[in-house]
């Protein structure tokens, strides 16, 4: 069974003029199909306004499709009786770290989700402790969230989601408001969690560096899925990515330029080590041919 599945998903909203009169319909998401298998790491890329955040909100049933269907853990999100079930199986982390922390103390915020689910008090405490340990924030449990850095706040937000024991975590641009250090911190936390808890991760982002480990990548533009494949397949098509106003990782770009200049390097290089290996191989080959 698919963890998250969308079929011809459409989300429309009314476009209004300054006086609030409806002047037409906007399609934020238009005929999207996605398939996410349990345990996968899936990335959704797209520039601002491509509909990727709207799509993410469907997975958590914050938005309900106006056309097509979205299944989460086998449940149709349109069914209002299953709303809580959907939200519990797919937790969501948002962009702004300040606006998603509810508690005035770290541990109380992590306990907020389980409290809502009606989990018994003793179990809330074990869950809170485990979740904070999983994101490496246990020593900050009695701190005020206001005194934490952006990366730490996002880790608390992630812990708050894990405490609800979801099968799938949707991260909606969790690093967009963080500095490079915070970004690294959050992404490595997510990777760690994937290893430890085997949760499905859906990462929505426009930072290419964050998606090189993904199992599949979807690229969105204008509400459509325009590209789909493994990171290597996607990043081989530098020109097409540029068309959708997306930047490829610096290494991939460099490799592509070298290739264009006639060096024998394959497409879709994702890591620096990879490029170094290919270049040194080339150099050795050249030296050998000189000797001969």
């Amino acid at each position, binding site marked *: 069974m698919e963890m998250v599945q969308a079929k011809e998903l459409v989300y429309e909203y009314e476009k209004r003029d300054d006086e609030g009169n409806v002047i037409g319909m906007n399609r934020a998401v238009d005929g999207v199909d996605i398939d996410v298998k349990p345990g996968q790491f899936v990335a959704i890329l797209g520039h601002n306004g491509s509909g990727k955040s709207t799509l993410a*909100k469907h997975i*958590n049933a*914050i938005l309900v499709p106006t056309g097509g269907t979205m299944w989460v853990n086998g449940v149709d999100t349109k069914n209002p009786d299953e709303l*809580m079930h959907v*939200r*519990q199986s797919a*937790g*969501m982390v*948002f962009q*702004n770290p*300040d*606006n*998603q*922390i*509810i*508690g*005035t*103390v770290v*541990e*109380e915020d992590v*306990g*907020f*989700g*389980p*409290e*809502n*689910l*009606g*989990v*018994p*008090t003793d179990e*809330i*405490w074990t869950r*809170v402790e485990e979740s904070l340990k999983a994101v490496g924030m246990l020593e900050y449990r009695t701190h005020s*969230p*206001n005194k934490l850095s952006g990366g730490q706040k996002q880790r608390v937000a992630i812990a*708050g*989601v894990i405490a*609800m024991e979801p099968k799938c975590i949707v991260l909606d641009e969790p690093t967009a408001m963080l500095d490079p250090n915070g970004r690294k911190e959050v992404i490595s936390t997510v990777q760690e969690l994937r290893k430890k808890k085997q949760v499905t991760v859906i990462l929505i982002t426009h930072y290419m560096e964050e998606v090189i480990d993904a199992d599949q990548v979807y690229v969105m533009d204008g509400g459509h899925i325009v590209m789909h494949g493994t990171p290597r397949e996607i990043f081989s098509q530098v020109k097409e990515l540029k068309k959708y106003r997306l930047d490829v990782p610096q290494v991939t770009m460099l490799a592509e330029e070298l290739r264009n200049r006639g060096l024998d390097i394959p497409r879709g290089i994702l890591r620096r080590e990879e490029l170094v290996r290919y270049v040194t191989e080339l150099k050795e080959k050249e030296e050998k041919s000189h000797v001969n």
Partner: protein
Amino acid sequence: MIRDITIGQYYPAKSSIHRLDPRVKIVCTLLFLISLFVQNSILGYAIATVFLAVVIKVSKVPLKFIVRGLKAIVILLMFTVVMNLFLTKGGEEIFGFWIFHISEQGLRTSVFMAVRLIYLIMGSSLMTFTTTPNSLTDGIESLLHPLNRFHVPVHEVAMMMSIALRFIPILLEETDKIMKAQIARGADLESGNIIQKTKAMVPILVPLFVSAFRRANDLAMAMEARCYCGGEGRTKMKPLIYKNRDYMAYTVTVVYLVLIIGIGRFVPFKLWIF
């Protein structure tokens, strides 16, 4: 100016008062406030002073801290004292000049009134000094729970209070940022009379409100995403349970209240009037 107001602040310390159940602290503070108004004698005030002093001592909150909270009511205090001093008639006249007359009764009332107000502020600020805002909200929620039957949304109001508390520092920081941004654009916030200064606040308040609404929207979404749907079916991470020390605190306060009322009733008149 905002920093001068210590009422509503929390003073972190490890005392037995800090550990008390917030419900106990709220109820006992109310009882203490009532005790100040049901009696009017020197002996009564002496008992109240001893009670307050002991509680302050036990709470480990420095007296300096509590006194600082009184700054906020200095003007109110002066006004009350002056009004009572000159306008209360009765008893022998102690001092008289032109239209100003101070009677014995007036002196007594004004002194008692001042002491009453000071103790009132000290008592209630001691409660907030020893209780975190969150447990205070929990306490209020639990105490007002019976009102649920009359369709008062107690849980929702308590939730709003605790969220407001969480966002105060964030919004203060934001105000600071907006002020700097407007000053950088040439806004003049410092000079002019009070009307001009108030007008200068508009370009700060408007963006602040816009951003507060945006935050509220985000927060509501984040809460929904974490399965929040009101107070029904919710469990508590930190449920309020009375312990022995809480019953003891209740007993002590009730004994104090009985004592102070009893003095008014049974101790000979001469002793307690002056």
